[in-house]
């Protein structure tokens, strides 16, 4: 028994030793899950599916194509920021990290991220090649703080079989509303003809969804959500208009109530409603349903950016990016990061198969991308998409606070004016505490 224990301890000690294989090691930390059981040895990126599969195959392929470099991957529980912050506090951050663009400002403001211009230069990538939404997302002040990887935002996922039954198809495409009144009129017609709700909504435990609706339609009306880095402004006629409209949707029973995200997704794929407003990340799953004979969405699925209901056609978006935490690195490591950037930029199309929009104009306009199902319809998101201003810190926490208050307003648990005022107050208190 003692020998066995000793053997285990020796094995563990040896396993913990730093590798010395003559290669340049880059320590990469990412979310998107772990799927080495299926893709552990795969380098065939084209055959990989889903965020985890494509990401795993890409990194395997980079390692194969760059024998002098070894990417050591650390998979973290989504979104991984508690761990990253802990690593930074312990002065042991990774070399490359997947980061939501809305979070970059939190770390960049404290000097915890390196600007990536030198790496982009090594990779031969110009920020001008990024889509507008991606460029906004990774640029803070005069510096670029990440290699943008995708743009994601809200979409109207449509069950075209039910839309046809409701008489809301023209030329093979669903007719989406152009004003709040039109949406409610369509909803009445839809429910009268199909007996099902027009909108499937995840209003329980999905603050991001509620915040996305408010941000998008306030931006469309020209609202400046953050007049300065320390304040949000929601108690405006535009804010009231949007919140009251979403409240009215529920008062007039145009949408489902009491559903969380899994319930809403299950309802949509089971054909229990016309439109499910959720993000780009669900395209892959819904396309799979649309290609499976016998399923309610089979050959009856379409997807579009949020329709313009007021003002301009603008939509709130975010994106994933690759950032480089600040730490000492050897020239070989810096070169390896540049090569990794070049490799990833070269494979941005592969990532776009997940449903997210490409971060590079060239990929967005490529026939390869536009020939993918639904992509031509959602491509405008890359140009109409607007992230929150990069000077605003704590965007993730802010989204939670705003979303919580808006969900209360939309469902009638709180009067609209109170919810907007409370959201504004809570966010301003939070921002006042930012160093």
């Amino acid at each position, binding site marked *: 028994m003692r020998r066995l224990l000793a053997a285990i301890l020796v094995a563990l000690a040896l396993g*913990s030793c730093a590798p010395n294989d003559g290669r340049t090691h880059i320590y990469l930390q990412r979310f*998107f899950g*772990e799927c080495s*059981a299926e893709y552990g040895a795969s380098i065939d990126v084209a055959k990989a599916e889903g965020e985890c599969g494509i990401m795993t195959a890409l990194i395997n392929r980079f390692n194969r194509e760059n024998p002098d470099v070894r990417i050591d991957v650390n998979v973290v*529980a989504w979104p991984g920021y508690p*761990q990253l912050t802990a690593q930074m506090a312990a002065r042991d951050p990774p070399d490359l990290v997947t980061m939501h663009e809305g979070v970059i400002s939190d770390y960049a403001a404290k000097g915890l991220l390196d600007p990536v211009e030198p790496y982009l230069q090594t990779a031969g990538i110009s920020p001008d090649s990024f889509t507008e939404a991606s460029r906004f997302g990774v640029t803070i002040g005069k510096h670029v703080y990440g290699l943008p990887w995708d743009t994601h935002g809200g979409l109207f996922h449509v069950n075209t079989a039910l839309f046809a039954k409701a008489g809301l198809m023209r030329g093979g495409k669903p007719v989406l509303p152009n004003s709040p009144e039109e949406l409610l009129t369509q909803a009445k017609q839809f429910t009268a003809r199909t007996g099902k709700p027009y909108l499937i909504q995840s209003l329980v435990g999905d603050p991001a969804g509620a915040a996305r609706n408010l941000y998008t339609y306030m931006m469309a009306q020209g609202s400046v959500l953050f007049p300065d880095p320390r304040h949000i402004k929601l108690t405006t006629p535009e804010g009231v208009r949007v919140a009251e409209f979403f409240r009215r949707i529920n008062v007039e029973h145009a949408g489902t109530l009491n559903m969380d995200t899994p319930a809403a*997704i299950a309802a949509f794929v089971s054909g229990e409603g016309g439109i499910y407003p959720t993000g780009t*990340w*669900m395209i892959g799953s819904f396309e799979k*349903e649309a290609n499976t004979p016998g399923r309610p969405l089979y050959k009856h699925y379409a997807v579009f950016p949020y329709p313009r209901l007021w003002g301009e056609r603008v939509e709130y978006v975010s994106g994933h990016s690759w950032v480089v935490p600040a730490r000492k690195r050897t020239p070989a490591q810096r070169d390896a990061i540049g090569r990794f950037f070049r490799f990833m930029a070269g494979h941005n199309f592969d990532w776009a198969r997940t449903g997210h929009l490409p971060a590079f104009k060239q990929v967005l306009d490529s026939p390869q991308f536009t020939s993918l199902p639904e992509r031509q319809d959602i491509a405008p998101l890359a140009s109409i998409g607007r992230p929150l201003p990069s000077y605003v810190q704590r965007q993730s926490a802010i989204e939670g606070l705003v979303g919580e208050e808006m969900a209360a307003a939309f469902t009638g648990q709180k009067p609209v004016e109170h919810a907007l005022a409370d959201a504004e107050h809570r966010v301003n208190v939070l921002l006042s505490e930012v160093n």
Partner: protein
Amino acid sequence: MAASAQRGRLSGIGWVALLIGVAIMVAPIVWTLLLSLKNNGELVGHSGAALYPPYTVENYAAIFGNSSTLRWLLNSAIVAIGTTAGVLVLASLAGYGFARLEFPFRRTLFVIVLLGLAVPSQAIILPQHQLFAWLHLHNSYPGLIMPGLIAPFSVFFMTTYMRGIPRELDEAAMLDGASRLTIFRKVILPLTIPAQSTLAVFTFLGTWNDYWWPLISATHSDMYTLTVGLAAAQMNYAQTSGLGYLMAQAVFASIPIFLVYIVFQKQIVRAMAGTAVR
């Protein structure tokens, strides 16, 4: 005897109530197990599909197919066993000291230890993390085990238990020429086995299920414990598109706990009933 048998027999209503209670307690476990045996795709549209075949073990295969799972399992075992052993040794020694020895500031020290019960771990997490960073203990077994050794409740528990053991036993051993250490090892410690078992079970369970400290201390995947590793393995929308896998993870992670419960059932029940402390 007959009266006792009569008392132990349940009436019809009692049986019905008992069965309802059992069903309520067992249903979530059965539901979890059934979901874990279903294909993820089938569950996306309708989780009720778990109630009928076909069933598959593909989710369990995916767990074992991940080369890191066994490493995480081993890490959890080392951390849980290490912490449990450490707590038992330290709490027993401290308990003996507070219960039997006279030394300056004994009461004050005991009060200070008890004050530790009032300090939530969240309140000290930042300095604790900084301290471990300073000592280069993150991503190491000592780094994962040591915070668990600060266990004021365990000290209180063992002190209380040892105070209940008659001092005459110590005095008799002293008359026979036994040293303090011998008395502790050969007289007191064997008498505390029930309390030690209870403490061991709860410490093991608490450490096995711990998520927060391993999450921020073990930041390299080869040092993850099972809780952190399985969470990292999930996709962003696991509750929707990977429900079967999620449930298989839950079943897998709970198997060691289940085994501990089966083996130490008596001690756990006794502890819950409050009879481990005399």
